[in-house]
């Protein structure tokens, strides 16, 4: 194990590391543009120049020592780039000496010569590495008086990616990403010197399933997202951590929102799940459902039409309805889109309060969705969680496939549905329509909410707290990223400034908050109506009970899950080694 010394801090590292890798892994930041931990080294931006020295040796091969017995360091006369220089025993690295600072200032001056500095119209402003370094490493002066270069702007690499040649600093991160990660090698530099620009191969598009990650890794605003373009300034948005519900991978994400509307989704680093990436499907496809077509209030059906009602009324209607049936005439359907907490209480309610064995859930799978990168065929985030909790019928309980038959012969009369995506199956929908009494937990309007007797307005995962278990059996904790009526007291301070400081007179604030609740809370209220005395105050209370009762989750807690970026089932005692997360920029608010 060689040791190296960076600005006087001694760190142990392994010999195959470059200086910047060793530094990043130990939480030391070395300025850079083109280096990215998951891409090959290209060493073209020269921002990472550092002063490097090695211990001097005497003629007999021993180390030269000064009068204090410390090794004498001989520094190289020229600066070296930290991203492609490998460490070696006893290496000394200075990143803050005058020489280095001067070099960094010069690099910045060169980069800014042809940079249009159109930050006011650039989406990257506020989270731009170039802006950040402009503050940190530039002397704020330019000696350039000539006309700036003009290049192509608004070039469409695909429907979702716009390229601005003038803003590009030619770091080649996007080219390397396309080649090495997305495996669609269609980008290349053309021309030379200050005319250099990036072109997509003739007749091609850069429209890979992972292509939009280049927008995140581009250190400047040269690449912008067609989906997001100009929707909001980043400082007006809140970015809260969450988990993608798009498939069973459970990529870690940040939800960027303003005025409680999701505007964009970004990957968040988790080396055990998605590294730095997410797929374009996960980025674009599901967030519309959080913004649009929501069920805002609980509803009950009165004489064929739906009426908004209070929570007490809705719970009472559900209670009166369910009371009429024998336990084995009622079927419960869990949801692989919902958290462990929701499904656990659903199961407890079915088995302990209603005392029925009829409980099951629908599995979803999209053949051909899977690739060898991130996506997997199971398009729900929590199938493994439901299996673990045991959302399944005992010996003589009904399975999900039995429903049509059992309803047709009148053995099944009431259905309690946690999964509002079931509306997409016409046959199921048809048989549900024949049932006498239907309760649905729904966040969005669907065919299912058109036939239900009671519709509980449910929070989407983005407004809930809970856990998912991904296809690799990693339990991951997610917190709310948006406000609902239920979590407003705790979430308010985590939102964007418009949401935080608005009053009812401002048209921009508080327009989009739903009177929805997490499923487990609704189930608790209903169970208490049936005489149970459940007193869960928060999702973590429910999770604590899960960890008590379910062997494979024992020893876990939200705190541990956060600390280790998720824990694998049954391995709460032996978590993966923590890694320091690499972040490309640091200036973004929140």
């Amino acid at each position, binding site marked *: 194990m060689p040791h190296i010394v960076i600005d006087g801090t001694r760190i142990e590292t392994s010999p195959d590391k470059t200086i910047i890798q060793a530094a990043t892994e130990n939480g030391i930041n070395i300025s850079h543009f083109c280096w990215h931990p998951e891409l090959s080294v290209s060493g073209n931006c020269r921002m990472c120049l550092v002063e490097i020295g090695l211990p001097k040796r005497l003629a007999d091969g021993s180390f030269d020592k000064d009068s204090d017995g410390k090794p004498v360091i001989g520094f190289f006369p020229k600066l070296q780039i930290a991203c492609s220089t490998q460490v070696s025993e006893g290496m000394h690295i200075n990143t803050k000496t005058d020489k280095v600072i001067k070099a960094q200032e010069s690099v910045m001056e060169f980069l800014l010569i042809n940079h249009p500095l159109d930050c*006011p119209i650039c989406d990257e402003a506020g989270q731009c590495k170039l802006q950040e370094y402009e503050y940190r490493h530039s002397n704020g002066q330019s000696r350039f008086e000539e006309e700036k270069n003009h290049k192509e702007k608004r070039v469409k690499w695909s429907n979702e990616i716009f390229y601005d040649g003038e803003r590009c600093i030619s770091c080649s991160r996007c080219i390397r990403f396309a080649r090495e990660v997305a495996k669609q090698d269609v980008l290349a530099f053309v021309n030379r010197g200050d005319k250099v620009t990036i072109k997509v191969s003739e007749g091609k598009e850069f429209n890979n399933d992972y292509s939009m990650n280049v927008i995140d890794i581009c250190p400047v605003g040269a690449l912008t997202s067609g989906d997001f373009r100009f929707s909001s*300034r980043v400082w*007006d948005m809140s970015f809260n951590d969450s988990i993608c519900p798009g498939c069973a991978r459970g990529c870690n994400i940040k939800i960027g929102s303003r005025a409680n509307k999701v505007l964009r989704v970004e990957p968040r680093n988790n080396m055990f799940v998605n590294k730095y990436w997410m797929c374009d499907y996960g980025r674009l496809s599901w967030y519309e459902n959080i913004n649009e077509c929501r069920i805002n209030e609980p509803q009950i059906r009165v004489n064929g039409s739906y009426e908004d009602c209070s929570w007490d009324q809705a719970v009472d209607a559900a209670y009166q309805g369910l009371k009429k049936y024998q336990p084995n005439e009622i079927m419960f359907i869990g949801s692989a889109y919902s958290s462990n907490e929701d499904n656990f209480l659903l199961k407890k309610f079915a088995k302990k309060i209603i005392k029925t064995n009829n409980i099951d859930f629908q599995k979803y799978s999209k053949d051909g969705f899977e690739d060898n990168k991130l996506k997997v065929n199971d398009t729900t985030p929590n199938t493994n969680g439901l299996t673990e909790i045991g959302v399944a019928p005992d010996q003589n309980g009904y399975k999900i496939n039995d429903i049509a038959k059992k309803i047709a012969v009148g053995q099944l009369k009431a259905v309690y549905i946690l999964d509002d995506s079931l509306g997409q199956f016409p046959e199921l929908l048809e048989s549900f329509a024949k049932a006498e009494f239907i309760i649905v937990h729904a966040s969005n309007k669907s065919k299912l909410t058109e036939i239900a007797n009671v519709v509980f307005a449910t929070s989407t995962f983005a407004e809930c707290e809970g856990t998912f278990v991904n296809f690799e059996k990693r339990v991951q904790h997610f917190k709310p990223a948006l406000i609902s009526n239920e979590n407003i007291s705790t979430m308010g301070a985590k939102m964007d*400034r418009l949401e935080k400081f608005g009053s009812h*007179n401002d*048209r921009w604030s508080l327009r989009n908050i739903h009177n929805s609740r997490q499923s487990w809370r609704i189930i608790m209220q209903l169970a208490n109506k049936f005489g149970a005395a459940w007193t869960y105050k928060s999702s973590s209370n429910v999770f604590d009970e899960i960890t008590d009762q379910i062997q494979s989750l024992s020893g876990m807690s939200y705190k541990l899950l956060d600390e280790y970026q998720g824990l694998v089932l049954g391995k709460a005692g032996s978590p993966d080694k923590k890694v320091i997360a690499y972040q490309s920029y640091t200036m973004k608010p929140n």
Partner: protein
Amino acid sequence: MNTNKNTEAQRLTFAEKLYLPELAKGMSITFREMFKPKFTRQYPEQRWDPTGSYRGRPVLVLEEGKERCVACGLCSLVCPAMAIEVQAAETENEKERYPEKFEINMLRCIYCGFCEEVCPEEAIVMSKDYELLFSSQKDAIYGKDRLLVPVEQLQDRLDFLKEYK
């Protein structure tokens, strides 16, 4: 304990303490002013036309039929009263961004002029308009229709800014 001896009573001279001479002095000013020409304006028949340095309600500059504003949102960020809301969108113009919606809540605005100072495009300036009348809180939220003012009408202010900003 307050050891300060410089109290009101100690500072006054004997004549001042007598009060009457002071009263006479005050009255003399009053009578002198009574016969000078009057400042009072017969508003609203007589209106006041402020100079370029006046900070009336902020307006957006309309130039060649287009707003100068590129919807960068800086005014909205800097505004201490959070009066401004900007929603950007894309255009075919050379500057690819424009404000699809630009609203200033005139009840929030405190006429500080920060928005004008921060604007990189000189697109929002303080006008001479000091007559702000609304019949409801909703009415006080000015949209682009009431904010955009042709550049010709704002020449005084723009000249002022050129000289002093």
